[in-house]
């Protein structure tokens, strides 16, 4: 009798562990994504669709077709459960502040949607190129030589940065460093129409890597 109880308990614990460690299938997450009406604001099939400013202004939220290349999984899973505003300004606006209120997901839905979003990757992001590094060159370009801080909040001591672009504060946890570099290098591939200038033909490849490594350190 005692042996049967021990075996039953052991099997139950094993089943519980298996259930909690098995990853959700991206298709499951896609189902939750669609059922939660996320697609009303976010499109998930690439390549980029926007051709005109009007196309971009018609969007309610950022495209997610390369989300798996852009975001870090732990951050994304946590954010979907407690979606604190990232942008200072409402998406596409230079007049209205971000009102917040992004829908939140329950933990198991956040896990499965994250699995889905992390499956959406871009072949234009090469892995293992950028390691976060506080480098003087990257800092000089970001803060002094180029207008990055003019639009993006960053962990500066005196000047904290501008408000029109998404803050880069917290980039070390939120963004894939390799994506930061890929985005600087080929911005049009990801977002053909956006308020940010193209720097791919202005900065050297080495400089872009320096900036990406620097941005990837932002807490």
């Amino acid at each position, binding site marked *: 009798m005692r042996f049967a109880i021990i075996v039953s308990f052991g099997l139950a614990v094993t089943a519980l562990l298996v259930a909690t460690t098995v990853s959700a299938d991206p298709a499951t997450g896609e189902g939750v994504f669609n059922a939660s009406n996320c697609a009303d604001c976010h499109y998930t099939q690439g390549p980029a669709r926007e051709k005109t400013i009007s196309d971009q202004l018609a969007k309610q939220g950022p495209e997610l077709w390369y989300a798996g290349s852009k975001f870090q999984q732990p951050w994304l899973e946590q954010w979907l459960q407690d979606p604190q505003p990232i942008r200072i300004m409402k998406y596409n606006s230079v007049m209205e502040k971000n009102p917040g209120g992004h829908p939140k997901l329950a933990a198991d839905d956040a896990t499965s949607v994250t699995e889905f979003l992390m499956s959406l990757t871009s072949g234009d992001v090469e892995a293992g190129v950028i390691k976060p590094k506080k480098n003087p060159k990257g800092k000089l370009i970001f803060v002094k030589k180029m207008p990055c801080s003019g639009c993006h909040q960053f962990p500066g001591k005196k000047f904290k940065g*501008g408000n029109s672009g998404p803050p880069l504060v917290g980039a070390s946890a939120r963004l894939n460093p390799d994506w930061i570099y890929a985005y600087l290098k080929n911005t049009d591939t990801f977002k053909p129409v956006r308020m940010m200038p193209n720097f791919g033909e202005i900065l050297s490849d080495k400089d872009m890597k320096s900036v990406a490594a620097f941005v990837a350190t932002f807490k």
Partner: protein
Amino acid sequence: MSKPIIVTATLLLTGLLGTVTARADEVEQVFGFYCAQCHGTEGKGDGPNVTDDFPVDPRNFTKAEEMEKLSDADIKNVILQGGPVASKSPMMPPWGKTLSEAQVDALVKHLRKLCNCEGKEG
């Protein structure tokens, strides 16, 4: 004048006005999308990026006394190459790899409308 000629002339004139209007709408959209984030929607230098600790004052395009000192070529160069080409702040981005020449030319004309002024020759 015969009726067909009147109708044709009216249609041509409407089409022409429509094209001019569309271009005015387009440059306003370009300005609102790219420029207003620092220069403000009315070009007064008060966009959302201009926080209390913003290191420079973006140009106020409505100030004729300042805009008259700049030639159209000066303005075009700064838009294309960024502030440093005119010894101004690098907070003014180089837009030359983002905007077309036609868009930049239209923006220069738009800025002249904002200041209701002409620039110096050159």
